[in-house]
Structure formats: C-alpha cells, structure tokens
C-alpha cells in the first residue's frame, strides 16, 4: 500500500547527514527499544509484517520522528490492538514514571 513510508524518488527531503564515528545507539532509550524487539516478537502477539504495517500507519509524524521512535510507536499500537497493554494502564504507568522522576 502507498503511504508516507514510500520514500523512493520523493523530492525536497533535505541533505544526507553523515555522522563520523557514529555510535550504535545515541540514547539509552534507543538501546531499550532495540532490546525489546526480539522479546516482544517472542510473545507471539504479532509478526514482523504487522510491525512494519504499524509503522506505515503512523501518518505525517513518520517524517518527524526517528527510527527507534517508529519502533516504539509500532509496539504501542500493536500491544494495545492485541489487548496486551490497555491504553488506560499505559497512560497510568507513564504518569507514575514521570512523577517518580521528578
């Protein structure tokens, strides 16, 4: 299906930014998102094609967010859709973590 992810040949997306001696991860949260990849698939809740499709369903924010934010968004979408984590408990947990970090 056509979508915002279908970037081949698109114009006007700016220069290619090449980082010298780039680290594998730029932030600790990227490490954690990457590390959840296989364990989350191992739950059997969804497969790789559903994961990719969840990224493709992101809409315009796709172009404004980074690679591991795409993964995070797909995990959130699918875990809720598959009934593994409800929107309410995710929201409550976010609030608690933000409060504890203050």
């Amino acid at each position, binding site marked *: 299906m056509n979508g915002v992810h279908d970037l081949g040949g698109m114009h006007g997306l700016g220069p290619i930014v090449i*980082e010298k001696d780039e680290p594998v991860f730029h932030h600790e949260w990227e490490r*954690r998102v*990457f590390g959840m990849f*296989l364990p989350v698939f191992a739950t059997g809740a969804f497969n790789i094609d559903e994961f990719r499709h969840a990224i493709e369903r992101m809409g315009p924010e796709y172009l404004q967010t980074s690679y591991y934010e795409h993964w995070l968004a797909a995990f959130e979408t699918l875990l809720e859709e598959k009934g593994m984590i409800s929107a309410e*408990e995710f929201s409550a*947990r976010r609030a608690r*973590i933000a409060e504890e970090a203050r």
Partner: protein
Amino acid sequence: MSANHNRPLSEVEIRVKALESLLVEKGLVDPAAVDALIDNYEHKVGPRNGARVVARAWVDPAYRERLLADGTRAIAELGYSGIQGEDMVVVANTPDTHNVIVCTLCSCYPWPTLGLPPVWFKSAPYRSRVVSDPRGVLKEFGLAVPAEKRVRVWDSTAELRYMVLPERPPGTEALSEDELAALVTRDSMIGVAEVKGVTA
C-alpha cells in the same frame, strides 16, 4: 533510580520506561534477554563480519562463486546468519558496474554481516534520493563514479537483504586474508565507498 536524574525525563523516555516496565511486570519480557540482545548488537555483531566475507571472496575464487550464487548459504559458512540475514543477495562491483544498496520503504539492512544500520541509511533523504540521483548521492559520500561506469541501485524487499562485494584494490596482492579484511569498510559494503588500497 530516580535519584540519578538531574533532568526531567523526555516524553519518549517515559514511554519507553512505561512500556518495558509493563511488559516485564506481565511476564512477557525478561529484562535479561533485552540486555543480552543489546550487548550482542552493540559489541559483537558488526561490519567486521561482512569484511571477513569480502576478504574470503577476494582470496578464494570458489568461495566468491558460491557467495554470488547463494549469498545466504556462503555467508553462513563463515558463521554469520540469523535475523535480517535470512535471504541474502551479494552483488559484486566490477570495473564496469558500481552497486549501492537502499531500503526505500523501510530500513532493511543485513544485520548478521553489517550490524545495525547508521542513521543516514535509515533517513528520508538517503532513501528518497539514492534511487533517483545515485551518482549525486555517491558524490556526497566522496565517491565520484566515472560516467562510463554503470551504477546499479538495489532496493530491499521485506525479506531480501543486499550486500555489496567491493572490488579488491590494486597493490594488495601480498596481503593476508586478515589484512585484507581490515581494509574493508562498512560503507564499501553498502556501496557508498570503495575499498582503498594500502598507502605505502
């Protein structure tokens, strides 16, 4: 843990912590498995693997033939296989043709041989432009491909991963396989660089 913070958590950090803590609490994810996966891809799997494949192909013509005929199997001979490398196609640079790889739809990349992709490979500017103006993009990487040389761009599908077999640089006849592997860069196996010879 909160005592260690000297700044508020970002929105994305909060989402990640919330997600992981819920998955762990529900017994769906083992944090030790998460740690192990991170360690493996941050410290063990990387382009040195692909460099060994390239060096072997340079010194062993029979291996090169197997590599170009069935990349997945030949790469597994050296012990590299698994996720994001299940269906590998290796494309060889020649005096007539330069190859470069991309994944326009996503960020597919051969993890077992090259490790995790750099940010620019996953970025919208590279993915959009390398298919429409490959020579211009290669120039930005410092690689000017002569007009008479063909440039081929290989765009991954959901299953298939490409890797470039760069040309062996001249003046390297006396080098051992290990020394050759040390010359091979990640970028040369993506196809945005060539392998440079030894500067004497």
